[in-house]
């Protein structure tokens, strides 16, 4: 199955619009609206037997972009589905009910970017459990590491080595 064939099959099976951007022979990116996320996951994961690899969340100007990477091992290409959650309403449908392996990564994205996943069975904070505030998300662009480190007492105080007073006896 080449990427063109894959796109054709996808077009015939899905009833919603999507935008295709072919990067190279092995990589293809598909942009969809966030309402259709679950439908496309069902088509790709359940019907076309792709392997779910990982999702990445990026903070861009328009909002939070989440990319789901699906690998087709036999056909030697990766299909990446990208979708956008806007700033004022950072919410996406959770894929856990379709792909059990997405549990950890959705929690991670929730944790670092603050994107809510609707329908996730156990959406809790992960990495910043104890020391980051509820509204502090390290991967957002407005996160200031320097200020954060100073607030939490993590900043290493730069101290130059004090010159040792040398008591050299001058010979008279």
């Amino acid at each position, binding site marked *: 199955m080449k990427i063109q064939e894959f796109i054709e099959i996808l077009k015939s099976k899905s009833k919603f619009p999507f935008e295709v951007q072919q*990067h*190279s022979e*092995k*990589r293809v*990116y598909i942009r969809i609206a966030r309402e259709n996320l679950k439908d496309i996951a069902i088509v790709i994961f359940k019907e076309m037997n792709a*392997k*779910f*690899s*990982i999702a*990445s969340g*990026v903070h861009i100007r328009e909002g939070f972009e989440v*990319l789901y*990477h699906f*690998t087709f*091992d*036999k056909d*030697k*290409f*990766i299909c*990446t589905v990208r979708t956008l959650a806007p700033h004022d309403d950072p919410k996406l449908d959770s894929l856990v009910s379709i792909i*059990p*392996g997405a*549990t*950890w990564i959705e*929690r*991670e994205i929730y944790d*670092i970017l603050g994107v809510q996943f609707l329908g996730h*069975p*156990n959406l*809790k904070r*992960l*990495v910043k*459990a104890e020391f980051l505030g509820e509204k502090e998300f*390290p*991967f957002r662009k407005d996160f200031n*590491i320097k200020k954060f480190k100073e607030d939490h007492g993590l900043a290493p105080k730069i101290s130059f080595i004090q010159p040792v007073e040398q008591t050299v006896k001058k010979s008279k």
Partner: protein
Amino acid sequence: MRSIIPIGPFHPLQDEPENFLLTVEGETVVDIDVNIGYIHKGIELLAQQKTYDQTVFLVERICGICSITHTVCFCNAVEDLLKVEIPERAKYIRTILGEIERIHSHLLWMGLAGHFIGYNTVFMWTWKYREPILDMMEYLTGNRQSCGMLKVGGVRRNLEDSRFPALLKTLSEMEPKIKMLAEAVQDDPVLKARLEGVGVLTKKDAIDYCVVGPTARASGVDIDVRRDDPYAAYPYLDWNVIVLNGGDVYSKFLVRVLEVLEAIKILRQAVKQIPKGDFLLEIKEIPPGEGIGRYEAPRGEDIHYVRSNGTNFPERLKVRAPSFINIPSFTASCIGQQIADVTITLAAVDPCYSCTERMISARDLSGNKKYSQKDLLEISHQKTLEISRNLARPADLPKLKKYL
């Protein structure tokens, strides 16, 4: 009676801190929780403050054992972004380094596996066999691990042709020893009794949990990035993907032994076929865009996602290490096992926490239970109190309570 056995955070089972909470009935495990995240450092965020050249050194330090893995994977991702083809010689050099790393990583695991089941002689012998390979790494690149050889667009330094004969000599000295090890594993009745049928991960579970690498291949799932998404010089070489159907620790052990033999085969061909010429492609600038790199690490498939905005610094780097996907499969393979078998089952995945935790901390896999340090202490205190109640006279109880 149910009780909870914490393994870790500091436990000789792993060199790295992690925490497993085993709920046991007698000696049988009925539930397992995985707590990781003790060594989360935030490498992905740190990468955004470093230039592409510096990031190579940073990803090298995601994991010391997979230092070549992550660097090659990152370079693959950036080269995918740039859509460039690197020089042939660089491809071969990457292959050679990667396979040397695979051999030393697998031997390392085998030794540790022997150590976990109390077979220290195996530990010492495999690590003795591993030393010449590390020596070769030092001879070729200048450092035993974390050699800093990779650069976007090729490799930073050349491997001199005059040094390859020494590599071939080491390999031919190693091969009979590895074969002996493979035979010893197949023949030793005690080792077999201890490993066979332990911690079985069925093929269905393997597909459901999306496991990768030797863990998947031992369960009969035929995946290998070197063949499925070729990078470096693998398309030009002749080798086999090892797939076994057992799914138990014994199969995982055997897959790794056989993969070492395959790696020796690959190395011999690569050294023979390596072309002369350029080894570094000059990269002037990195345009806006995104790229995905894949690499077959000793532990499984590694994926890097890089997004550039045209500046010197990557806008986003996402790392998915193989252990991240493999660790959840503990739930499938550990429940119903004996405590004595759990350690080797956990180790059989060859979990690498440095890789996994560059961004993630997982808690409470089963979803409903979570014990804090305090709860655990409380539980263990209750248990000791109960035991002492059974052992001691009633008159002593107030005294005992004082100590608890």
